[in-house]
């Protein structure tokens, strides 16, 4: 069932080798240009990459989580979220329960991190918890667990670091070239004999690489990222047996007006939808980490027959006009899997209740500013006491209990 991961892995490794070659080529040419020795440049490129890779391999998840201002929760802090994650952990056969984090932010979003399925973390925003019903939350969590299970995070860390190294090298090299060139009127070693045409060629190749390498690397990175988003969507449908959950969650997330405060360029690819860009860009946008949401939703909704990878592949080909996501061998091995019905649960969020909750939040805030006090009753009602109130007790009109003020 998880054979498609192998096909995908081969493709990713090929792209990554290409990126590494790009990095080394950049190092090589820059080495020739600055130190007259290709080896020196290669060593610098390797050191930059190795250093960043080590840090992000061992510290990447904690850096990311602290950048996102996420706090860890246990089973009692958010029972529904914890339960949903545990359900999806079981459905996906993940060996260990991932750590769960909450980000206090009204913008609905989620991401997963961690270098392998044994040591993974999953973070969701409070906005997501407020907006989504159980099925939608399940779809989102399953998408993130799909990332963990498909080992996307490790790939994206390595690829991201490689991209970062290329960008850094190119940036510093271009600064050295410009300022070094201005200061001394040419390269230090230009007085050496045997320069001439060879030097100019290196200079030109170096310039071209410096400009093109970051762009090409970025395009590769984005292409890998987009592919993996689709794959995680397919996994989500498979684990939940209910593609509509993720589809409607994606719609809700993209319809939310807020932008995630704690996200930036570096962390953007990790989220379930791009926290920076707004929807409405071209469908084939090469410079986006995420596929357009409308397309992801259309594919999920086109999965009429079932939830196996074959069904997702079928829907994908239909929507994206003949393009293919998974290899034939990968999708052929599984039997038919039907879609389940929607679960009718107590935590359903409907638009009217959501609106009421929003306006109640606002009025609570106004009352608080006017020094009203609040008393919570065991029956769930909340009483607001005006500042001039003299008595010690009030009676809850809903359940009749006497409450201390």
């Amino acid at each position, binding site marked *: *069932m998880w054979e498609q991961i192998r096909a995908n892995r081969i493709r990713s490794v090929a792209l990554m080798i290409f990126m590494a070659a790009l990095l080394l080529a950049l190092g090589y040419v820059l080495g020739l240009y600055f130190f007259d020795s290709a080896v020196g440049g290669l060593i610098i490129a390797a050191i930059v990459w190795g250093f960043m890779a080590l840090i992000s391999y061992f510290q990447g998840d904690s850096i990311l989580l602290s950048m996102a201002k996420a706090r860890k929760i246990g089973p009692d802090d958010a*029972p*529904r979220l914890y*339960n949903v994650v545990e359900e999806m952990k*079981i*459905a996906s056969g993940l060996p260990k329960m991932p750590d769960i984090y909450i980000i206090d932010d009204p913008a609905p979003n989620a991401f997963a991190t961690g270098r392998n399925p044994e040591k993974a973390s999953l973070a969701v925003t409070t906005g997501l918890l407020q907006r989504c019903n159980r099925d939608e939350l399940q779809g989102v969590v399953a998408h993130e667990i799909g990332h963990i299970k498909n080992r996307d995070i490790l790939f994206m860390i390595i690829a991201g670091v490689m991209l970062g190294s290329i960008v850094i090298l190119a940036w510093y090299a271009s600064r050295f070239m410009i300022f070094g060139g201005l200061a001394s009127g040419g390269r230090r070693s230009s007085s050496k004999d045997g320069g001439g045409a060879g030097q100019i060629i290196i200079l030109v190749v170096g310039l071209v690489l410096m400009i093109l390498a970051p762009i090409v690397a970025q395009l590769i990175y984005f292409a890998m990222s987009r592919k993996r988003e689709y794959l995680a969507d397919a996994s989500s449908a498979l*684990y939940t047996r209910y593609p509509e959950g993720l589809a409607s969650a994606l719609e809700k997330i993209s319809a939310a007006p807020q932008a995630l405060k704690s996200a930036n360029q570096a962390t953007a690819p990790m989220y379930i939808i791009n926290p920076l860009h707004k929807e409405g860009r071209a469908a084939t946008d090469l410079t986006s980490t995420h596929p357009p949401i409308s397309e992801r939703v259309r594919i999920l909704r086109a999965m009429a027959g079932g939830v196996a990878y074959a069904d997702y592949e079928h829907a994908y080909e239909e929507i994206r006009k003949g393009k293919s996501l998974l290899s034939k061998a990968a999708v052929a091995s599984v039997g038919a899997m039907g879609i389940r019905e929607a*679960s*009718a649960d*107590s935590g359903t969020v409907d638009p009217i209740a959501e609106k009421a909750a929003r306006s109640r939040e606002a009025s609570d805030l106004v009352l608080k500013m006017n020094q009203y006090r609040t008393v919570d009753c065991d029956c769930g009602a909340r009483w607001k006491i005006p500042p001039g109130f003299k008595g010690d007790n009030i009676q809850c009109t809903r359940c009749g209990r006497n409450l201390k003020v």
Partner: protein
Amino acid sequence: MIALWVILGIVVILIIWVIGAYNGLVGFRNLVKNAWAQIDVQLKRRYDLIPNLVETVKGYAKHERETFELVTKARNLAQQSSGAGAAERGKVEGELTQALGRLLVVAEAYPELKANQNFLALQEELTSTENKISFSRQYYNDSVLKYNNKIQMFPSNVIAGMFSFKQGEFFEVNVPEQKEAPKVQFT
């Protein structure tokens, strides 16, 4: 001399393949076993939740003795047959699921019960446990499918026959009317 080497080579390759295929089958069998253990954990969790739930509902709905007895009986029966095979267990668990569904429908008629924090927490736990049961069942059945495919397909079926690997049993919860977890709607 060369022929001898060739034969020896073929034998060595064959032995390596047999070892690999055998280990592969053992891996799949353990996957199935592990998946079954997951279901077991969730079913046990449901047995533990039920007495609590019945007690909570009893506090508000005193006249529904019949339903309580039905649920308790189904629970005890399911717990007793927890050593049985997948097919037998699927049947009794199906009955328990049905009885629980009825209990939750009963609870619906008592608005005060629905406002009880304890009941709401129990209900979340139960919903989640039902989900976990169905997801672990889903994973178990997927694993069994993979394992059975391996046993039936050539050439690994030869090894399976030699070392008598038995096919895994699918776990189906047989509820007469409803196949999924009971539908609970409190809003």
